[in-house]
């Protein structure tokens, strides 16, 4: 195979070099940068699995063929997709290829002296000349020194340069962006993120099995989960009486770390998570768990306890499912919990306030096969009623019981639940440091002007200046300089 195409060794190296030059050229970097912006757009218009898995599911339900094709192009996981990654990885390679050589160059340039004063100053910008008084060179030297110019003095002339911070800031900005990216990658490799729903009064022990959902970084070691347990003592939600909008959430817990012997009371609020080293515990959501007792026809208890329901609107109308797989035949209840009950002509039972002022549990009882043994994972909040028959509908107040031929269910009351998120993010401080350096670098770079000023003193004084990138402001600086030399200031 290698005999068929004879590529000279130098040629392939040349090709690589050509490719590298293309990749690290400013034009490519610019195209990649714009491409990154354009590539981020679809993820903001199409629902993403990481943020809105339910809406993604609806896409698949409503137009499965289209959704399948969209999924092939990772349109539901844009920011983790191969094509998105390809763009930003290429961009960062291009950035590194551009910034590193410039860093070395700048390092050398910063230690070098400014170039010698050009012969024909009258060809430069901001040129002016007048007859000498004799002391201009001394004055200029002092002026340059006070303004911290770097100077080269030779043969009755001074060449002065200032504004290296522009490139220094620029390089720091770009290097800091690399640090941000490294911080983010570090977190995704070594971090973890998990959610758990806990009823008020219950205890959570930090082991992998306690979580409802848990994502571990590829290199996260399960043994690194910090040892702690927490008990939810009290959850207080305050709502606006007029708008039902939440005004405050406060979660009081009893926290036990390390040896579980010492406990302390702690409070978690929305904007103040509980910090434990690299790990933070957030209060993310809350809702109601109706407490029920299900009995069979002989009066034996088949199920007892709180069942978390999922809030559907701002007034916490919540839906859920109560499954009793141990009953024979199996029983399931599709339920709806309204904390403050009211009837609406169009929607039936609705909640008019998020606090439990007049709670109701509305149930539809189903008999048959819950389908739990089919192997297909099921939502705990829904019931697949395809192999079941409805045996009754009922609205219950706390303490009331609904009796049907095969048994009964009692609505004992309700508990509040909270959803806590536990996050270990070891790279975030690097990302933060990178961001701060990036801003400082950006400020230094955008607000520094690089310029050179020359003066030659013979019989007459000649001065001239040059601003890089045609940055403004040199004109007034030259005017100051000349006025100072002439003794007008």
């Amino acid at each position, binding site marked *: 195979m290698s005999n068929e195409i004879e590529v000279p060794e130098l040629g392939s190296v040349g090709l690589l070099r050509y490719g590298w030059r293309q990749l690290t050229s*400013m034009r490519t970097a*610019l195209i990649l940068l714009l491409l990154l912006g354009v590539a981020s757009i679809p993820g903001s218009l199409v*629902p993403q699995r990481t*943020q809105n898995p339910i809406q993604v599911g609806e896409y698949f339900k409503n137009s499965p063929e289209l959704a399948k094709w969209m999924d092939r192009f990772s349109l539901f996981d844009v920011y983790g997709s191969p094509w998105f990654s390809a763009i930003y990885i290429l961009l960062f390679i291009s950035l590194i290829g551009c910034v590193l050589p410039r860093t070395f160059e700048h390092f050398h340039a910063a230690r070098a002296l400014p170039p010698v004063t050009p012969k024909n100053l009258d060809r430069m910008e901001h040129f002016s000349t007048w007859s000498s008084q004799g002391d201009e060179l001394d004055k200029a030297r002092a002026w340059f020194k006070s303004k911290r110019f770097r100077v080269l003095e030779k043969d009755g002339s001074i060449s002065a340069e200032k504004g290296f911070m522009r490139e220094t800031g620029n390089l720091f900005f770009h290097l800091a962006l690399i640090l941000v990216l490294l911080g983010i990658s570090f977190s995704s490799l070594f971090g973890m993120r998990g959610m758990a729903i806990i009823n008020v009064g219950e205890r959570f022990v930090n082991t992998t099995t306690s979580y409802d959902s848990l994502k571990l970084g590829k290199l996260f070691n399960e043994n690194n989960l910090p040892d702690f347990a927490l008990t939810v003592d009290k959850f207080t939600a305050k709502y606006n009486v007029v*708008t039902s909008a939440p005004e405050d959430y406060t979660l009081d817990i009893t926290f036990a770390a390390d040896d579980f012997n010492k406990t302390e009371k702690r409070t978690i609020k929305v904007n103040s998570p509980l910090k434990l080293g690299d790990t933070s515990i957030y209060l993310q959501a809350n809702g109601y768990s109706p407490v029920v007792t299900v009995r069979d026809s002989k009066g034996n208890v088949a199920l007892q306890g709180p069942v978390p329901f999922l809030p559907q609107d701002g007034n916490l109308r919540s839906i859920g499912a109560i499954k009793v797989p141990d009953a024979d035949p199996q029983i399931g209840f599709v339920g709806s919990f309204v904390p403050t009950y009211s009837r609406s002509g169009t929607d039936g039972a609705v909640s008019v306030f998020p606090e439990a002022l007049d709670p109701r549990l509305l149930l539809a009882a189903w008999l048959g096969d819950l389908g739990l043994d089919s192997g297909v994972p099921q939502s705990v909040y829904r019931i697949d009623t395809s192999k079941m028959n409805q045996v009754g509908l009922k609205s219950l107040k706390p303490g009331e019981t609904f009796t049907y031929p095969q048994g009964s269910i009692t609505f004992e009351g309700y508990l509040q639940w909270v959803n806590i*998120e536990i996050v270990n993010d070891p790279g975030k401080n690097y990302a933060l440091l990178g961001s701060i350096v990036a801003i400082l670098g950006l*400020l230094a770079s955008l607000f520094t002007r690089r310029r050179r000023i020359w003066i030659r003193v013979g019989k007459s004084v000649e001065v001239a200046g040059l601003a890089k*990138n045609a940055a*403004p402001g040199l004109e007034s600086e030259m005017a100051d300089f000349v006025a100072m030399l002439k003794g007008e200031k």
Partner: protein
Amino acid sequence: MSRTWAYLSNYLVYSSMAVYTLSFIAHAIETAWAVRVTTEDSKKNMDYKRTEKVARIATAMMILGFVLLFVGVVARGVSAGRVPWGNMYEFSITGALAFSGAYLVALRKYDLRWLGLLVSIAVLLTLGTAVAVLYRPSAPLVPALKSTWLVIHVSAAIISGGVFLLANAIAAAYLYLDAMESRGERTAWAKRLPSLEVLDQLSYRLVAFVFPLWTFAVIAGAIWAESAWGRYWGWDPKETWAFITWVAYAAYLHARVTVGWRGRKAAWLCLFAGSTFLFNYVYINVWGTGKHTYSGL
């Protein structure tokens, strides 16, 4: 007590609209009533001396409108006992304030009075939409917004937005005049507008000045998101579009400084970048989903 302040705020916002309208009319008169100079050498030029007085009135009204709106925004904050940045009505009146403020600040340094007509129209449209469509009674903040970062993040974002839009208006003026010049001479009224080069430089300088602030707004948002939502970056639609705006302006700055884009190409890129900001504000707030949408806009 809080109700009195809320009513006061509403009156002030309405009054500022009336004053901005006066400013708009004065700007319009200034542009329309200037007379043609008949002398041979300056043929086809306009004489703005005749309308100088009304131009001064226009600027004075703009300043008065700004002051009234400023007090109106402050009163709104007092009525709710917090910074006035809790919903889109409040963002809009503060955004209009920032936009006319950016214009007035730039006016001190550059001769931008020709832009006043456009600025007063934009401010009136924003305030009109805010009052007619977006108005919500003054209310306390939802828990996620109760943070010092609200002040830092939102003020940085609103000021950046005001300056971005001003740079956009100037870039648009550039493109308009550029098209006019490529057809021939500028029409008489357009002659007093600055040269294309000045406009080009001005929109660049505004962007270069405010880009670090926008970067800061995004980073401050990330720090806040870390404490409120448990992650500093989650590709929420608002975050995504803030990122797109950042990338677009970064591309604009690179294109100018490193590749040397000037004039038409740069102006188009500036307009594109600014429109990503507007899209983020209007579309994502109203129709978007995600964590930045709070109940009732």
